[in-house]
């Protein structure tokens, strides 16, 4: 599921033959992907400044029309002497049905282009706004192909584990950690964080020989793999914190929760 990039506009066609044609620009209008054009007909009317040409009359040079018929002399009596014959024969096939056109299909969510706020770069300290870790200050590690942000507390600082968060539920601060050459392990992708939901359907339960009337709730326990990954990632983040001159304050900052006091208006604050 690689993030699709915006399509490159079609290049102007190469000059045909030896004749050098005037360079054509790119068409400004383009297909949005599902048969809808970016600019409407009336918008293009203004863009192309067609109003300039309304009512204007240019004498059209008469085009030299190629003859489609030829008059042939015909011998024999009572044949009229000549016949008009079509130069190109008429087509012998007439379709009874319209052609089936393939329409450009809708883009599914997984193929949408992700746009992340410019303030959210790896290493940014973010404030979580929702969820059970709301108010915590966490470190952004990467933006996953699904568009979700991958953050970590670090766990040792504020018990926020490796977690995916939508960017809407985050305030990016201007405080940034220099993660240096830190490379996120390749297996930490969207599939890694997906919950394995067991089917709650009765039929499935019955097949597995479970009691269909009892809904068991197993408490969440992180796997060994998760613990190891958490350690690995947090080591890089805490090293970045320790490398700074204000490490003590920064550590306290990440440990402390964000909150609004009286006469604190988030839309007026700088972060």
């Amino acid at each position, binding site marked *: 599921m690689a993030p699709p990039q915006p399509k490159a506009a079609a290049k102007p066609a190469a000059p045909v033959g030896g004749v050098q044609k005037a360079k054509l620009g790119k068409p400004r209008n383009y297909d949005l992907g599902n048969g809808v054009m970016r600019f409407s007909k009336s918008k293009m009317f203004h863009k192309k400044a067609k109003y300039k040409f309304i009512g204007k009359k240019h004498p059209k040079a008469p085009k030299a029309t190629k003859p489609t018929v030829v008059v042939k002399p015909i011998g024999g009596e009572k044949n009229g002497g000549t016949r008009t014959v079509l130069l190109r024969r008429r087509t012998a096939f007439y379709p009874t049905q319209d052609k089936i056109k393939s329409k450009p299909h809708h883009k599914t969510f997984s193929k949408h282009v992700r746009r992340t706020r410019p303030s959210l770069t790896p290493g940014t*300290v973010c*404030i979580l706004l929702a969820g059970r870790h709301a108010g915590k*200050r966490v470190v952004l590690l990467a933006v996953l192909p699904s568009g979700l942000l991958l953050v970590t507390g670090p766990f040792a600082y504020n018990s926020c584990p490796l977690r995916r968060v939508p960017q809407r539920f985050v305030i990016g*601060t*201007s*405080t940034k950690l220099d993660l240096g050459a830190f490379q996120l392990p390749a297996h930490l992708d969207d599939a890694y964080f997906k919950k394995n939901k067991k089917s709650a359907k009765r039929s499935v339960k019955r097949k597995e020989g479970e009691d269909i009337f009892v809904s068991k709730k197993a408490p969440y326990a992180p796997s060994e793999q998760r613990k190891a990954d958490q350690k690995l990632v947090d080591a890089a983040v805490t090293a970045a914190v320790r490398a700074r001159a204000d490490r003590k*304050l*920064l550590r*306290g*900052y990440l440990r*402390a929760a*964000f909150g609004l006091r009286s006469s604190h208006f988030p839309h*007026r*604050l*700088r*972060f």
Partner: protein
Amino acid sequence: MPFERYVEPGRVALVADGKLKGKLVSIVDVIDQTRALVDGPGSGVPRQQIRLNQLHLTKFRLSYSFTAPTRVVRKAWSDAKLNEKWADSQWSKNLANKEKRAQMTDFDRFKLTSARVKRNRARTAVFKSMKAKAARSGAFGKKKVPKTPAKKVRTKKAPAAKPAKK
């Protein structure tokens, strides 16, 4: 109490609203009940009319006659050392502090809070020890006095260079 600051030629005012917000101007002439002609050669404000409700009058006053040309105002402005005097005043310092506070980032706010916590802890410790001392000497009217002094809390001094602390 009578008024002390009038809209009058030479009166220096701070523009409180509009495009010139935050700039210092000097009144040259009073046009009518609501408007004045102002000039600010020392603050980069061209001569223009301005509504009086956009002005906040300061205690400063330059001396020149009304409708004085810009060159006269400029001379009076520099002779009075108005820019230095204004920068020295509590009003402009308060404005500067307000600006500094608005420019603080989230991390800066956290640093300020932790510095204040440290200062308050130190202050409380000193206050408690003084109180205990006074109580022991009998000046405080408290009979039963613990022998041990009040528990000393962390008395590390807060870092001195904290902007806009208050």
